[in-house]
Structure formats: structure tokens, C-alpha cells
């Protein structure tokens, strides 16, 4: 019984470690082009890539390709930038973000099940 209890506690520790304490690496957007552009695939409950980083004062175009038919995935929101878009299914749809100051800008679906961040350095 002791082993089972320890396993249970270990599992809880693992959950905390895995979901909360983990710091996700972000995908650096190359800024050689006139406008930075990155493609994000919306599928199976995640944005891929979900963490995007770029340099400050650069506008960014994110081309979303939504492959998940569930209505939750259909809307993407950038609450800090007051930007939102309805993503068509299986088609590319570009969302243009203005040049941003340093900081983290979250984006997510309406229910916050899909989550991503744009990190501006």
C-alpha cells in the first residue's frame, strides 16, 4: 500500500512538473524577409508551433492552417492585441500582427484549450 501511495504522490509531482514547471522553447522567426512570417498548424488540440519568438518592433504574419473541425479551433484570439480571426478549415489564413514591444503575447482559442504565445525579445 505504501508503494501505491508513493506512486500516486509521484504521479502528482510529475503532473506538476510536466504541465506547470516546464518552460517551452519557442520557435524563432527569421527576420530576414521584409515581413516576418510563420505558419502555425491548428490540429489535435495544439498549435504547432505554439511558442513563437521574434525581435521587437517587427510586424509578424502568422498563417494559420486549421485542420481540426471542432468549432473551438475555429477562432483564434490575441487578447492583448485585440485581434481575432475565424480560421477556415483546411485552408491557410493569415493574421497580421503589428510591430510589437517586448513582452509575451498569448493567443488561444475561445475556450483556451488551444494555447500559444508570441514572445517578443
Amino acid at each position, binding site marked *: 500500500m505504501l508503494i501505491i501511495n508513493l506512486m500516486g504522490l509521484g504521479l502528482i509531482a510529475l503532473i506538476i512538473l510536466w*504541465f506547470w514547471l516546464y518552460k517551452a522553447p519557442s520557435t524563432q522567426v527569421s527576420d530576414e524577409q521584409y515581413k516576418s512570417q510563420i505558419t502555425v498548424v491548428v*490540429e*489535435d488540440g*495544439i498549435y*504547432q508551433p505554439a511558442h513563437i519568438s521574434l525581435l521587437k518592433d517587427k510586424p509578424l504574419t502568422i*498563417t494559420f492552417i486549421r485542420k481540426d*473541425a471542432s468549432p473551438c479551433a475555429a477562432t483564434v*484570439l490575441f487578447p492583448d492585441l485585440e485581434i481575432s480571426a475565424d480560421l477556415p478549415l483546411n485552408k*491557410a489564413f493569415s493574421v497580421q500582427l503589428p510591430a510589437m514591444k517586448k513582452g509575451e503575447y498569448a493567443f488561444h482559442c475561445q475556450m*483556451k484549450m488551444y494555447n500559444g504565445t508570441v514572445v517578443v525579445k
Partner: protein
Amino acid sequence: MNKLTGSTGNQNTQELIIEGAGCASCVGKIETVLKNINGVDSAEMNFALRTVSIAGNVAPEILIKAIETIGYNASSASDRSDDELLDEKDIADQKYYTNLMRQVWVALVLGVPLMIYSIFGGPMTVETPLERVIWLFIGVLCAGIMYFAGKHFYIGAWKSLVNHTANMDTLIALGTGTAWIYSMVVVFFPMALPEMARHVYFEATAMIIGLINLGLALEVKARGRTSEAIKRLIGLQAKTARVVRDEKEMDIAIEQVLLNDIVRVRPGEKIPVDGIVTQGHSSIDESMLTGEPMPVEKVAGDTIVAGALNKTGSILFKATRVGKDTALAQIINMVKRAQNSKPPIGRLADVISGYFVPIVMIIAIVSALVWLNFGPEPTLAFAVVSATTVLIIACPCALGLATPMSVMVGVGKAAEVGVLIRNGEALQAASKITTMILDKTGTITEGVPKVTDIIVADESYTEKYILTVAASIERGSEHPLAQAIVDSAIEQDVELEHTTDFQAIAGHGVTATCHGQQVLFGNQKLMLKNDVVLNDVVAKAQKLANEAKTPMYLAIDNKLAAIIAVSDPIKQDSVEAIKRLQVNGIRVVMLTGDNKATANAVAKKVGITEVFAEVLPEEKSNKVAELQAQGEIVGMTGDGINDAPALALANVGFAIGTGTDVAIESADITLMRGSLHGLADAIAVSKATLRNIKQNLLGAFIYNAAGVPFAAGILYPFFGLLLSPVIAGAAMAFSSLTVVSNANRLRFFKPQDH
């Protein structure tokens, strides 16, 4: 997004979707043909996505044509019209629904008989070898259902897990997975478990998958209805326009109409883009945009807006705003944006959703441990059931949907009654307003002054002569009251005279020479300054002022000749609209730059008791701050131009749109028609929406806060009750549906009749 209609001179990138590119060698061909076009700086194709991004300033049609010449099809990635996007969405939703329903049937075909069997006491245990074989068969069947009907949960859960996130899929996959794996362990190794714990839960797995899919399917249907308002707005857009180019008329897609194109609209057609009438006249129905029920007569020189309906005549007009710049497109854009923005009340739910799933997983583990340590026999079976039920009953979706669904419907509803709400914050603040400040001119009143009285003081002049002199000297003045006098003269066909020595004295009036006579025209101060004898006329002037009219004195050769009174008529429904606000417990205050007497008279007429008169434009925001310091939540209503600082400072700034001019940046809420009823409507819609959000949030919180402990078995020690995972599945599936349906109730909201 990157709209290029012809060469714009701006550097731009745009994206095209390529069809028919089957091999990697196509990439080079497509890129080369694009790069050869004049104006294209770079073209890069992403073969995996079949998209090509092009930098340069070339119209998309040219790029598409070039790609077509080498045998591929191309379409613009982001330039699909709202209409097409909506159609696509409807088709995709319908397909998703059909697919889900198929999965529902498959899952329930196995789940329902099994559940009925278990309810009527069929043994769900594994005792004999025959039972093992039967349950093994059912277990494999169940795995098939998990694959066919629940694959999306498991893939979603796995992908999120790998990416260190957890969502609803995680909970469902863990819950159903635990039940299935435990059951399979029972089937394969019954001996490893105590006898009482040899129970299978295949029916739970099948039923949960079926019910949750059913919930999702019904939710898709219900969600479709939440966007009704925006669909109606988008439906106002014409699809084609008949333009006159090179003296030929042709029908083209609305996206291709260019600025300054001459467009023909025949009776019964919708106005395709914004413009100015150049030829013909017609009555035009703008009711869908402004709520103004009467059609408006339009002649050459008048502006018309896209989405309005041409009723009687055929007209030609010059396009002044096209594409995403038309008032209608801006309205649609603004409503869409606002529908997706979140009021502060929703933030807490957002924070909670961020931690929700891992917390539920932890609760499930704790619950299982408690059963294993302290529970009655069979502890293992109880532990598995409680953990599964906790995982299944928890519903982050209901929490996540609570706010956005209501905002979606509420903002859409507001737009339908002519109220454009900028964002969720404004929506929430509007529901809390305690004081409403109304600007007088143009808000309570029409804003277009008219001559109401001409009182001749010197019998040697006729009324017409007085008007001639007054209008002649005021012709050069820019004062709004001067315009009223000139308009009145034009109306009465008075011929204006030539004047000389015109002089405007700020805060007093004007002087000039007309017919060789020295004319003074202005307020009392001007007369006193020039020693004009006023006598008993002052009483008459005071009487006019008390009637909310502005009296102006006209003296000819330093002798008083007449008083001309000008007044800005009060909008027909202002009295009633202000009363509506007051009935709702809102303190209404009037703010104006006008003199005290006129201001008080207007206030009295419309039933306002608090007046700030003679306030300079730059002092208006101080008054807002003053009221805020008293602890009031202040709404400020103005025309949005000279009131901008006050509108911005107020908790909610309302701009009265002149017709369909929606680009009023400083306002939180724009009223599309001039009536003040829009204020009460806006507040009523906001209150209803906020109430709806609160119901949803409360429901979702209570559901989760009560459901999870219940599922963990908190009632078992007292009443011997433990929730079945199937019931948990049903509850979870319908909790989010309840949220969406409750939000949909807002569709039936009607602001008070007026």
C-alpha cells in the same frame, strides 16, 4: 487581409493557395513565372502547404492569371469575402456534425444495450472462462469504437501531453482509457484481483464517448445560431456591382470595384460600395444599417452607403470607399472583433482554465488513493470508478465557453438594434453606468439650428427686409447660428445683398455695411457696447431665451430694428429616451457650451435637472472627472468630434453616429442612428449580456465545484452514493451545451419598445 486592388504603391506580401501542383519541380516553375512579373520582388513557395507568398505590389488577379497560364489554379489565401468564409464555415460545420453523429450512433449501439444489461442486474463480472471470452470480445469491440468514434480524443490528448499542455481531450482520454484498461486487466488477469473487484466497465467507455460526441454535435448546431447577427450583416453586402468603365456598363464582382469607379444601381438593388451620387435621384432605405425606418431621398452630391437598398430610381454614383473601407465592412469588422473580445468578468475563468485540467488529474489521483487507503472492499474497483468519474465529469469547456458565447450573442444583438460596441470592456462598463452625461448640441438636439422668430422692433422695416439684411451680412460668417439665418433666407427666396466692412467680434457678433446702412448683429453685449437703446425688448428676448431659443439683436444705424431668435430643435424622441434612462435609475446630466438660459430651457423641456452650462470644449473632460470623483460610473454621450477627450475619459464614451459614420475612434459605443433611445438600448443589452455571462459562469463553477467532489465519492460515507461514470459523461456533455443554449436565449432579447 493584404488587399491590393491594382498597384497601391505600398510594399506588401500576400499569400496564394496553389492547386494542381503535384511535384516538387512545380515549385521552381511557379516561382519563376511570378518573379518575372513586373513589381514582384520575391516569390517563395511552400510546397508542403501548397502556398506561395509574394512580396511586391501587384494586384492578386495578375498573379493568379500568371499562375494559370502555366497550368495551375491559384486563389488568394486571405482575400475570400466574408460571405464565402461563412459559407465555407457552414459547410465545414455541417460535415463535422454529420461525422460526429455517425460516431454517436456507433458508440451508442454498443453502449446502450450494455448499459441496459447492467442496469437490469446483468452480471458485469468475470467469473467463468465463457464470461472471459464474451467480455474479451466486447472489450475488443469497445476498442474498435474507441478508435472509430473517439480517435480524436486520444490523438489530441497524446499530442497535447507531448507538448506539455492538457485539455478536454486529456480528461476524456484518461477517463475512458482508465475504464477500458482496468476492464481488460479484469478480463486477462482476473486472478490478480480480489473477487469483488472483477468488474468490467466497457459500457462506461462506449457510453461516455457516445454522449460526449453527442454533446459536441448539438453544441455545433447551437453555436451556429450564436452568429446569426453577423450573418445578417454580411448578407447585406451585394455580390456584384455594375460599373461604367470606358462608357461601357459591366457587372463585376464587388471586390473588383475600384475607387472613383462610376457605379450604376437600379431600383430594388443594394448599394454595393460607399459613394456620392453623381446622377439621378432615388429614395434609399438605410434601415438595416441605421435603424432609421424612413427611406431617405438622395440626389446628386448626396452620400450613399453600401448595404442600403435603392427603392425607386436608377442612380449613378462615384465610389468613394470600397472593399474593407466601406462603412458596412467596418461595421462587420468591428462587430466581429467585439464578439471575440472578452470583458474583464471573463478573465478569472481564463486563469482557472489554464490550471484546470492538471488540477482535475491531481484530484482524480487523490480520490483514487483515498479509496484505496480508506475505502470499503473492493477498494480497487471503487478507486477506478471514482478516478474515471472525476476525470469525465470535470468540464473545462463550460467554463471556457461561458463568457465568449454570451458576448458573441450580446454584441450581435446590440448591432441589430443599431448599437456598435467596441469591445468586451465597454460592454461590461455600460452595464454599470450610474450617471449619463449628455452633450446638448447634436445629441439632445438636432444640431442644426433654425430661425424660429423674427420680432420687428422698428415698424419701418418688414420682416423680409430684416431677414435680407441679417442673412446678407451673416453670409461670410462661419458661426453655426449664422448658417441657420442664411438657410432661412434661402428657404424664403430672399435675394442676398452685397455688404462691405464685414467684421466679426468674437463673443459679440458681427458688424457690416449693407445698403449704405451700418448694421450691428449679435448678442446683448454687442448692443450695449455700441450704446443701442434696448428698453422693453430685453424682456421679449428673455422670454425667447426661456423657451430654449437664442435671441440675436439686429441694429440698423445704431437703432434696434429687430430680434431674430434661432433655436436648435430638440430631437423628437429625446424626452422619451431620457426618461427611459431615468426610470432605470441613471442620473442624467446635461453638458453644454451654450448660455445658462438656453441650456436650462432645453433641460427643462427634456426633463433634466442637472445642467453644466457655458462649459468650454476643453473643460468637458474635467466635468467627467468631477463626477467620477463622486464615485459615479460615468457614461458620456457626444458627437465624437469636439467631445473626444471627454468620451475617452468617461467610463463609457458613446458617440452618436451621423448616419453610418462608424469610424469614431474615441468612442466605446457608437450609436448608428441619431436617437438617444440607443443609449437605453445599449445599457439594456449590456445588462442582459452581463446577466447571461454571470448565469453561465455561476452554472459552470457550481457544476464543476459540486460535480467533481460528488464524482470523487464524497457522498458515499454518508449516503452510500457513488456516481456512475456514464452519468458523469452525460452531465459533462450537456453542461457545455447548456452554456451555449443559455447564451442563445439572448437572441430573443428585445429592448423596450419605442
